[in-house]
């Protein structure tokens, strides 16, 4: 397909298809309904399965089944629906199953509204389900990047046998941008000798299960996960830098909000303030390495900007570890700040103290 104008939500679907995914189980919810809307038409065209489940709880468990059978499988929802999926995510991790989950975030808590938000950061990166686990989280900022990161998401999921979440907000899901859909995408997926596909002549059966009754065995299973997570922390940190080399103040934002923040950095430079931007692309593993780098350069202070009350802020503070003041500006509930508003906050930041500010 030549250059095409796509909605973010359509790109989540097309990106999955290009990554070799042929199975989708989901349930409509604003502002991500165009994901199932698109895939309902598109998946049958390429021999895939689209199934509208009766709920998000059912969707994630259907994804568990498809993943156990070795399929590349996608589910998607928006904030309240993702809350319903948390139990299933924990079981997927416990069973070491690869799966990709898209969350197009809206304003919460509770029913909240349908406006863009980033308030599910904690839930995504700290784990909203039970047990000691991690989910890799990718945060695209453009429609083109959705296409690219969907492929990355499926590859990481298979490589580490762990769910991957792709986290966007309502703006990203609904906006339209030109994308490149060169080539045919992935035609084969890695072999999965552990998958439940029949014994195929073997004398032993594959079993996919998260039950581990003996504490010592469960400890060993947890330590196996820990080992996997350490590898992911070392090898999979991704981020984008913008004008950081000489920047005294580093703005930190993820997803579409990073585009507002880049415009702020440009404006700041016009006014003589040397500003730069770190945009974490992986939210877990959090890109600590980006912060080590800019602290060695010129960074004297940080300003974290989020569509929430200060969630990624904690990870930035852990990465900076008290070496520089880390300020915060957040707009919760579905409100997106203007360039001017972030600019005003930037001018109030101090190099002496961060004041422990949250909002």
């Amino acid at each position, binding site marked *: 397909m030549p250059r095409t*104008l796509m909605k973010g939500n*359509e790109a989540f679907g097309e990106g999955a298809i290009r990554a070799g995914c042929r199975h989708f189980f989901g349930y409509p919810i604003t*502002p991500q309904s165009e994901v199932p809307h698109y895939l309902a038409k598109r998946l049958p065209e390429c021999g895939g399965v689209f199934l509208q489940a009766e709920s998000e709880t059912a969707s994630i468990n259907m994804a568990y089944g498809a993943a156990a059978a070795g399929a590349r499988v996608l589910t998607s929802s928006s904030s309240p629906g993702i809350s319903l999926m948390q139990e299933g995510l924990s079981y997927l991790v416990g069973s070491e199953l690869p799966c990709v989950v898209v969350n197009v975030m809206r304003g919460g808590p509770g029913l909240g509204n349908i406006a863009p938000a980033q308030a599910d950061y904690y839930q995504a990166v700290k784990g909203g389900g039970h047990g000691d686990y991690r989910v890799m989280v990718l945060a695209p900022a453009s429609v083109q990047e959705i296409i690219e990161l969907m492929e990355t998401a499926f590859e990481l999921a298979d490589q580490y046998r762990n769910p991957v979440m792709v986290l966007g907000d309502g703006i990203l899901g609904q906006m339209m941008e030109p994308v490149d859909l060169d080539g045919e995408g992935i035609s084969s997926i890695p072999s999965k000798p552990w998958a439940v596909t029949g014994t195929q002549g073997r004398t032993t059966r594959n079993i996919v299960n998260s039950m581990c009754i003996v504490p010592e065995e469960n400890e060993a299973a947890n330590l196996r996960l820990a080992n996997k997570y350490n590898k992911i922390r070392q090898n999979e940190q991704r981020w984008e830098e913008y004008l950081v080399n000489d920047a005294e103040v580093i703005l930190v934002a993820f997803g579409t909000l990073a585009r507002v923040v880049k415009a702020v950095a440009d404006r700041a430079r016009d006014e003589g303030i040397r500003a730069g931007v770190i945009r974490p692309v992986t939210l877990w593993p959090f890109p600590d390495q980006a912060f080590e780098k800019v602290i060695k350069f010129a960074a004297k202070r940080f300003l974290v900007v989020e569509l929430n009350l200060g969630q990624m802020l904690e990870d930035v503070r852990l990465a900076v570890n008290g070496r520089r003041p880390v300020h915060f500006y957040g707009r919760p509930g579905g409100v997106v700040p203007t360039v001017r508003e972030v600019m005003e906050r930037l001018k109030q930041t101090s190099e002496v103290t961060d004041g422990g500010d949250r909002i």
Partner: protein
Amino acid sequence: MANFPPVRRISIFVGNLGSGKTELAINFALGLAGAGRWVALVDLDVINPYYRTRYVKQRLESLAGLEVVCPAGELLQADVPALSPAIYGVFADVERWGVFDVGGDDVGSTVLGRFRPHLPVGDSAAFFVVNSFRPRTNTVEKVIKMVRDIERAARVSIDYLVNNANLGSETEPAMVAEGHNLVLKAASELGCGIAFAAARQDLATGVQELLPGVPVLPLQRFMLPPWERSEE
């Protein structure tokens, strides 16, 4: 707007999700208002809660002669299929010109069906907006299928196709001309006309040079992401 093909009192814009109906309907309504008509722009989009006419209601109504008909109060931002009772007034009042911005695809067009008995016979026209750079309308066959699906859901016949070929910020006049060829073929197979082509304001002259004799509606953009909005 003087040289546009027959403009009826009620103009209905339907099409694929993301075909540009909202921008088109807004600019079409502004054109009518600019020509001195009393215009009601009706937000009939009940499936997509983002990028809707209702979000620029205040701005549009500050321009003379234009009234935006949409749910009132907190329902303005609610994700519910609420329709304003004022819509009936637009059909009934022969002094007013109605421009309807309908939701995308067959699912979004379904809502139009309930208003069919109120459409003034011989004084309404349905426009199907085509952006040939969108994945579901990038071939003649797909356009025809989408037209048929929407006609069935909306219970109206499409009178005109509108060429709104664009690649967002990367649009060039040649792309609009390329899209026009596809729309011409589709229109010929469907047995309907092409009402006009649309292009972003700064491209309209270039497009007109490539499409002599085709009316070109210059588009002022209203639906912008937060980082492209001029300072609020």
